[in-house]
């Protein structure tokens, strides 16, 4: 060793002299490590649970924003901001026209047949209940029964009172829920002529087309489409 090595050795030894000299019990060291490992495991498991719950929450909220199934309550506002429209015959057969969330409430002996198109976005148009209509919009045969399970969001819905096919006369109530307004139960009050039904239907079609166009435009711009109504 030369002088320089002595200098380095001295420096290192001088440093090492200040090293701690106590020798802890190895059992304590092991216990500390195991406790640390256990805590990390618990934290990791907790993190996984939290992440899983957050994922489920995100999934659930995404499901809420997507169109639901007819008859299920909606937690998001509907796409239309205009007042719900209900019109139709009272007790008699005829065409009832309504826009919005529709709840069918019928007495057990009531037979209500009709057509309803569920036109929520991103969901294939479905007919929840149909009855063949002639050119005047009148039922050809009473083939289908509308009941509570058919309730749902309808952009337009034509119902044909079926008292002519059953007795006593139907006491159908249509409940329309729009947005955050309290549920409004509307008893069908007026009959609707085929011409008027066609006009309302055309208006609804125009609204639907405008909404689709708007959604398409927003999608092209990369903006998320607006939260749509629906059940």
């Amino acid at each position, binding site marked *: 060793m030369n002088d320089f090595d002595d200098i380095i050795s001295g420096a290192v030894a001088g440093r090492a002299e200040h*090293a*701690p000299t106590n020798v802890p019990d190895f059992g304590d060291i092991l216990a500390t490590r195991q406790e640390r490992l256990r805590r990390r495991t618990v934290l990791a498991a907790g993190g996984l649970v939290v992440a899983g719950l957050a994922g489920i929450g995100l999934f659930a909220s995404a499901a809420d924003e997507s169109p639901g199934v007819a008859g299920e309550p909606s937690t998001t506002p509907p796409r239309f901001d205009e007042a719900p429209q209900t019109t139709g015959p009272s007790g008699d057969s005829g065409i009832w026209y309504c826009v919005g969330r529709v709840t069918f409430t019928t007495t057990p002996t009531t037979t209500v047949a009709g057509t309803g198109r569920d036109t929520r976005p991103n969901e294939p148009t479905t007919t929840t209940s149909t009855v063949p209509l002639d050119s005047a919009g009148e039922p050809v045969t009473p083939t289908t029964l509308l009941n509570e399970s058919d309730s749902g969001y309808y952009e337009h819905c034509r119902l044909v009172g079926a008292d002519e096919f059953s007795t006593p006369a139907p006491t159908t109530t249509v409940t329309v829920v729009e947005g955050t307004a309290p549920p409004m139960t509307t008893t069908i009050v007026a009959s609707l002529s085929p011409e008027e039904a066609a006009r309302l239907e055309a208006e609804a079609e125009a609204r639907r087309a405008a909404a689709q166009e708007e959604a398409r435009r927003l999608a092209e711009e990369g903006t998320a489409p607006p939260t749509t109504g629906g059940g």
Partner: protein
Amino acid sequence: MTSSETTAMRATFDELYRNKYRPMVRLAYVLVDTTEDAEQVVQDAFVAVYKRFDSIDNPAGYLRTCVVNGGRKMLRRRRVVRRTPDAPADPTDLTFNHAFDAIRRLPADQRALVALRYEQQLTDAEIAATLSMPIGTVKSRLHRAISTLRKEIS
């Protein structure tokens, strides 16, 4: 392999712990800068040896490698966290040592070589076995480290 290592190899873990804890803390204290870090490195190394004690041929050598690797890892982590070079030690400190301050500023690998050579008094071959590197690499890096220190100190 030194004779003390051979003895330690045959010894039980308790004997290894009793005989080697303090020397390993001294080595770790040269490698890292704080008492807490040195103790943590050594304790982690002993836990690693404890888990594999029956299957290790040379527990003392394995322990030393664990300590050196733990110290280098801690230095690397510390540098990554701070993203800045080590701050120079305070020259007004009574324990301040210019030579060791120069050692502190060496890269972690070279600092480990210097610690093994001058604190543990290992030969080039023993250092090569501890760090799992060719003996030629040990010689060249040690030469580079000593040249740097010589320049710094003079």
